[in-house]
């Protein structure tokens, strides 16, 4: 009888250990790989007519700022919507032609950023390309705002 008790006890202990190990391993996998963001839509304030948008495709960390274009430069919504960009934020990054070559042909941002109306798309790269570091900053901002 005693032997059986000891045997059952050992079995329960073993099961417990494997269970703990399995759960912790699963948590590790889940927490170890943070999900790649599909872009950031950050509302600084409603008065600028739109959010700060950080694209992640085709390269990570490209900022379009409504604050700059509408708030500071005073462009009306009609200058871009819906001819160049759809109203839904981050929608255009799903298009396969959303890349620098298309911009040089005068589409998307390239409609104004052609060297005449605004600086050309193939100059001053880091003005719009805020990079992974910039993207992370906006994600942090967004997270802290959501907490509030």
């Amino acid at each position, binding site marked *: 009888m005693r032997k059986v008790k000891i045997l059952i006890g050992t079995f329960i202990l073993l099961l417990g250990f494997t269970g703990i190990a399995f759960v912790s391993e699963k948590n590790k996998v889940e927490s170890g790989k943070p999900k790649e963001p599909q872009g950031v839509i950050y509302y600084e304030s409603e008065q600028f007519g739109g959010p700060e948008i950080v694209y992640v495709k*085709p*390269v*990570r*960390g*490209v900022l379009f700022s409504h604050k700059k274009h509408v708030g500071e430069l005073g462009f009306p919504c009609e200058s871009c919507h819906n001819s160049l960009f759809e109203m839904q934020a981050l929608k255009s990054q799903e298009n396969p032609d959303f890349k620098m070559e298309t911009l040089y042909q005068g589409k998307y941002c390239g409609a104004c950023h052609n060297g005449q109306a605004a*600086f050309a798309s193939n100059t*001053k*790269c*880091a*003005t719009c*390309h*805020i*990079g*992974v*570091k*910039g993207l992370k900053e906006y994600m942090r901002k967004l997270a802290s705002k959501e907490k509030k």
Partner: protein
Amino acid sequence: MFKGIKDWLLNLKNEGVEQVPDETKREFLKIGLIITGVFAGGSLFSVVSKVAEGLESSEELHKSYPYKPHYSMVFKIDRCIDCELCMEACRKTNHVPDYGWRTMILRRYDESALDQKIMFMPILCNHCNNPPCVRACPTKATYKDKKTGIVRMAYYKCLGCKTCMVACPYNARYFNEEKHAVDKCDFCWESRLSKGMTITACAEACPAGVRIFGDLSDPGSEVYKLVHQLAKPVWVLKPETGAKPNVFYTIS
């Protein structure tokens, strides 16, 4: 004749220092001081004579390349957009852990700057011609490859003393816990170049054409053309260290 000397030496008995007169001791010490003085003076002289070498003009520096192929990288720095695809490719190719890095992108941010407020600067090991890390390593675990000029690591020799990490003026080294050795960029020598590929993983991954990799001793290569011209500025990082780096920066 020499056999006799050997026997004589072996049969000598220790007389002890009690019997030695003070004057002999003093003379012996003087010899030691003279020898030290000669060495100290010599190193001082060598410092003086190396000043000119450190200030060598770029034309002289580029006249001859000691390695063949003389691997080098040129950054068109204004094109970098910090997409970090290079870092990703490097991690994947060379199995760099999350806490370490072989190449990195630095950011300069200036709120008061006109227009563009951010600038990115990619960095990696400069594979110096006069590498301070190689001089610092006590076990010769890091060495300059005699053929290609790549500063490489012999991981099995590394003690993990991290002296090289302190010596490197470019902060291009990290301690790899898994290898228990210091790890660094080797221009993908182990993972790619030695297997017949001609370009590093980071240069291949860069979508903006920032990183240009090639043989600086080959006048037909792109790196040669980018470095040997005066139309655009070309510079190296921390030239004052005299390390003579093989990574150059320019603008597009």
